[in-house]
């Protein structure tokens, strides 16, 4: 099994979620994060001084999927989340050794 971790622009969440649910993905876990990279934040006025907002809001989507699904998922997310402008985000794939569905105790790919 693999974890596909996607950092995307917040307004892309619905498009990405719809694209992956159509591929039979049973679920995902989402968190609000802030990204720092080449994309610059805007400047803000605070107590009379202008300063750079460095960390931009992003959405992090974690999906654990079976090995066979990884490539299709990575391609679908990249296609859906891409605007072509700096700051679109990243997709990282890493190995998951065990998975358990808490409700039933099932484990392995059947628990996904």
């Amino acid at each position: 099994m693999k974890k596909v971790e996607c950092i995307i622009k917040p307004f892309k969440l619905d498009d990405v979620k719809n694209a992956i649910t159509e591929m039979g993905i049973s679920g995902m876990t989402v968190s609000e994060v802030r990204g720092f990279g080449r994309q610059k934040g805007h400047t803000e006025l605070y107590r009379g001084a202008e300063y750079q907002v460095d960390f931009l809001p992003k959405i992090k989507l974690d999906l654990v999927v079976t090995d066979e699904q990884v490539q299709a998922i990575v391609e679908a997310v990249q296609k859906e989340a891409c605007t072509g402008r700096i700051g679109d985000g990243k997709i990282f794939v890493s190995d998951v050794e065990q998975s358990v569905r808490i409700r039933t105790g099932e484990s392995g790919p059947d628990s996904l």
Partner: protein
Amino acid sequence: MLQRAKAAYLGLAVGDALGATTEFMTPNEIRAKYKIHRKIIGGGWLYLKPGQVTDDTQMSLAIGRALLSAKRWDLAGIADQFLVWMKSKPIDIGSTCRRGIRNYMLTGQLETPYNDGDAGNGAAMRMAPVALFSLGDEKVMERYALEQAHLTHNHPFSDAACLTVGKMVQRALLGANRFELHELTRDLVDHHGNFRFNKYSGNATAYVVDTLQTVFHYLFSTASFEECLIGVVNQGGDADTTGAIAGMIAGGFYGLDDIPNRWLKKLNREVRAEVEAQALHLVRLSPWAARN
């Protein structure tokens, strides 16, 4: 006969819509909230509108669409319809059904490998269109039942359940009496003793053994479609599916006139229309129709 076929298929949809309200509740919780749940009111864990159906009816309709468009048994067509259905963002998909459909999407295989975890009721709940389409030829029904089941569920208990449910629906349509239907359950219990239901435990989970015990207990201890379904859905657990399976057998057995009109009227109009249309067309394509 056409009326009985409609009653079986409508029984499935009515049981699904009625039971969905009490799915995953315990009998005590149902009693506390509804005293006796006997109206189609939607709600439930899926927040349904009154008369809305779940995967039990939708997957059955998918099978019907594949068979009616091919006018013959078409397993790949059924798998394709399941895939279209999965992509349509249905209100719910069981995890075993989802895995099977996903496996078909990724590999094109029309049979999922054997799995201990496949003893759920997701294949048995789809038996109505299969029984209607193969009415008049039990051997053919058996072949179709196992092929469609193995798209998502590959386990001897699920297999046995599909065959028994299919036979009961067909024989009910062909005019079997209560004792003849009971005999079919005794065959099942002979092969798999754990399906024995004469000391009913009250478990109504999605484990196919619990599901059929619940269905058979209420089917044989009540005397009308309404009484049977009310008993089943107030047992909670996987109530939409126990309701759907009880509904298809009881519907076929008691006939259309015995299905409460208030339930039929509450059923989603489009679902009701498609169920009725499929029932008629599936029977007209069956071996029974060819002979009559």
